[in-house]
Each structure stands twice: as structure tokens, then as C-alpha cells.
């Protein structure tokens, strides 16, 4: 029972896929504000819920906790601190990353939802929770999350 065929060449099989040609993933009303501010002004903006005293980064048009409509946007600045991090040795396809890449959740203020991004200009062993970091932006921006190149430690 434990002996199973391990090689695909030994069994009858067909190769196929089920993908559509491609998809349009829209940023939405709040996402549009976020990416346009990032591209045109180099700003990272969030939306604040006064009821929950919680700031969403990126912004949303509603608070998922109390369902209030969120209209108050604020410039979060570029500085934040590391909430959690990892040092990745493999990419999403299972290929080795050499050197390894560091990723982190970065919170841009108190009671602010963290943003996922890369860390740069820092050795993996120097990264810690609470580390102060700031965003490094591309000079030419397109309105994408990768307009932020990475976050680097604040000197």
C-alpha cells in the first residue's frame, strides 16, 4: 500500500490549465486615492475611523469593524516601525534567494494597520521588532505598491 508511483512519466496523464487570459484587478475608490497620492505626491496616505480610533493604511472607504464610511484621509509620513519580519531564503516559486531577502510588517503610527513591504540597507541579523524605518521611494513612480522600493533603518 505504501508503494506509490512517484514519476509522472509512468502514468497516463495530460497537461492543461484553467486560467482565463488575464484579469483586471482594480484598486477601488480608496485604493485609487492611495496610489495616486503615492505616484504624484510621494505620500503614503491612510483613512481614519474616529469611532474605533483606528487608521487604515492603505485607506478604505469603510471601517470593517463598525461599518462607518471613512472620509478622513491623512498623510502618514514615511516613518514607521517594524511589527514583525522574516528573512526569506526561497522565493514564491521555490527558487533560492541569494542573498536572502527581508520582509516586514511596518506600522506608520499608533493604532495604524501595518503595511507589508521589503526591508533594505540593513543586514538580516540587525533587524528587530520595534526597529525604526523609513520608506525609500522610486524617483519615477507608476502608482504601484512597488513605487516604495523598500523601508530602510532611520539613522
Amino acid at each position, binding site marked *: *500500500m*505504501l508503494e*506509490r*508511483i*512517484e*514519476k*509522472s512519466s*509512468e*502514468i497516463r*496523464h495530460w*497537461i*492543461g*490549465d*484553467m486560467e482565463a487570459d488575464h*484579469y483586471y*484587478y482594480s*484598486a477601488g475608490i480608496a*485604493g485609487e486615492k492611495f496610489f495616486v497620492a503615492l505616484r504624484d505626491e510621494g505620500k503614503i496616505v491612510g483613512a481614519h475611523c474616529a469611532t474605533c480610533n483606528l487608521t*487604515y493604511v*492603505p485607506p478604505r472607504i469603510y471601517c*470593517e469593524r463598525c461599518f462607518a464610511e471613512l472620509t478622513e484621509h491623512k498623510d502618514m509620513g514615511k516613518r514607521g516601525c517594524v*511589527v*514583525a*519580519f*522574516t*528573512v*526569506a*531564503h*526561497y*522565493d*514564491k*516559486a*521555490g527558487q533560492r534567494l541569494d542573498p*536572502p531577502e527581508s*520582509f*516586514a*510588517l511596518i506600522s506608520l503610527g499608533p493604532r495604524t*494597520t*501595518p*503595511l*507589508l*513591504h*521589503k526591508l533594505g540597507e540593513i543586514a*538580516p541579523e540587525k533587524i528587530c*521588532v520595534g526597529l525604526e524605518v523609513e520608506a525609500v521611494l522610486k524617483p519615477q513612480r507608476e502608482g*504601484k*505598491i*512597488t513605487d516604495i522600493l523598500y523601508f530602510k533603518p532611520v539613522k
Partner: protein
Amino acid sequence: MNLKKIRKDVAVVGAGMTVFARRLQETGKEMAWEAAKMALDEAGLTLQDIDAVIMGSAPDAFDGVHKKGDWLLDGAGGTNKPYMRVFIGGGTAVFAPIAGWWHVASGMFQRVLVVCEEKMSSVQPHAQSAFGHIWDPILDRPLKPNLVWIFSMEMQRYMYKYNVRYEDIALVAVKNKRNAVGHPCAQLADPNITLEDVLNSEPMALPVRRLDISPPSDGAAAIVLVSEDVAYEHTDTPVWIDGVGWCIDTTMWTNRDLAFPKFVARAAKMAYEMAGIKDPRKEIDFAEPYDPFDYKELQHLEGLLLAEPGEAAIMTREGKTQRDGEFPVCPSGGLLGVGNPIAAALGIKIGELYWQLAGKAGPRQVKKDVRTGVAQAWGDLMQVSSVVVMRRR
């Protein structure tokens, strides 16, 4: 929750499970049939006796067939019966039996078959490719996330907040891979594994190393649920589902409390209330929490209110969670030891509770007398939890 509305008590009277391994040749339907037949045989039932069928299986992307619930229908025995597929990612393993439970508890059906199947080897080049499409397409995907490094961040946050040592977390992998030695379906049993093996295994996304993770697998599992009106017609040792609970946290995973899984605690409280459990640490004898990574067993024990935050690591270090310890955890060998074909973990979680409580766990039978056990699974985008309390009467 209105407990008075529950009409019938529900018992498990049979369970089946295939070998967990890379099984290129068998189709998902064939594996589902194999497990379902075993469960029916144990209950002394044929497919004709079954009133309704629940199928549990994870993303369609694993099989490359959309709406795979109806595609898998015949192997699960659902043709010409009331049938539904349920799916909450990894949480399906314990959620599919909850769906089966409400079919019977409502009084609508007397005998329900629950089948969970997963074939992860079809997707190329690796099951990880399918996970590439579960992320937010605008915020997460451009950064090319890999599931392992997301878990790694959570593990790191857990270690930071509760001052948990990596060496204690790695002991979970050692325990479970050793426990799996007694399991006839196990893929990763290793009687000789040591803590050093885990600590020195290849770094994947630090702090996570290769042996901290359960690998993809193919397999199926099934259980038969019956109403209190007919339970003793099928067995002398029915095992009762006395409490069920489930809860989901925000989809933006970055916004959750990554150290303490509040949604697990909410699901557990729901199940404990239904089961009349006031002090889970005193009233529950053993647990099968979801352990796709070693740190998840600890975090889930804490979410299940069976340990204080950070305490599960100490219990592990002190040997309390060993199979012969004072509170056995994952006596099956868990996902870390038996394997992780997502939804089919039904066999490791609910199956193990059934076999242990019915006294049928063979070499895996825990030493102490057990009357009450809890099983839990975790899934969707690492945000949902399903919990079941089972008892022998």
C-alpha cells in the same frame, strides 16, 4: 447561539483514511472513494443507507478544475443525494464535519457521510504555485509573497510577544514526527528525529526551517455521522460531537493580532459553551490542534484556552504534551508527522479524536483514560478556525 434549537445529538460511528503520500496516479475521486468506503465499512453501512453527503476540499486551483465540489461528487458518494461542498481552506478539515453535524443535529437527516479529499501533486511546478493566487492582487502580490514567509512573520511575532524560545517550538516537530510512527497513514514518521535535526535543518524563511513545516501531500479521509436515534444500531462505541464552533478574523492579515489567535478563542468558546465546558483545562483530556507548522500547535493550544499565552511552549519543554504526558497533544502525529493534504487532515484531527475516544487508536492509544477531546483546524488566509469537542459517554 440558541442551544435549545439543536434537536438531535450527533455521533461518529465510523472513520476511514488513506495513506498520506505523493500519489500521482490516483485521482482525487479515487482517494475519496477509498476513505469513504473504509468509514462506511466500519459503521456497517452501505452507500444506500446514507441520507446526505458533505464533501470538503481546498482550493480549486490544486486540481485545475473550477467548482471541483461537483467534479469530486461521485468519489464522495454524493450522486443522487443532497450534497454540498464546504471550503474554508485548511479549516475545512474540521469544518466539513461541522457541516455534517448541522445536517444531523437539525433533525433533517439520520445518516450523513463526510468526505474530505486533497490532491496537491497535480499542480505544477509545486502546490506553492496555487497559493500564489490567494493574496491581495494589488498590495501583496507585487511583493511576490510566499506562504512560508508570511507564517514566519507570525511565528516571529509570537516569539517576540510571549518570549518563546525557538528550541521549545522545534520540540513540537520532534514530538509529532515521533508520534506518527504508530500511524498507518503517515508520510513523515521518524522514530530517531532529534531537536538538533530540526535546529540544523535548512533555513526557509527565518525563523522557519524546513523541519518546522509539514509538506504538501495527497490523501483522503471520511467519517460517518448519525443521529442519536440510530447510533447504537451501528456501534457499541459511538463518539459524540458535543460542541462545535467557528470564527473568522479580518482578511487583511497584516491587521491581525499575530501573537494570539483571537478567532480561535472565539470558536473555542462557542464549542465549549455548547458542550457545557466551563473550565477547558480541567474538563478536556487531550487535544488535536492544527499543526501545519510547529509554532501553530502552541499558538492554537493557547487560542483553545488550554494554555496561557506563551505557556504551551513550557508545557512542551516539560513533556506534558507527549502522548504519555498529563495532557497529550497531537497523539496522531499531526500534520507535521502524518502529512498535510489540507482538507484530508480530517483524518488526523476528527479521525484521531474518534479513534482515541473509542479506544481504537492501537499503538497510538494515549496512556491515560480519555473521555473528552478537542480538535481544531485553521485556514483561509490564515484567519479562520473551526473547533469540535467530542466525548465518549
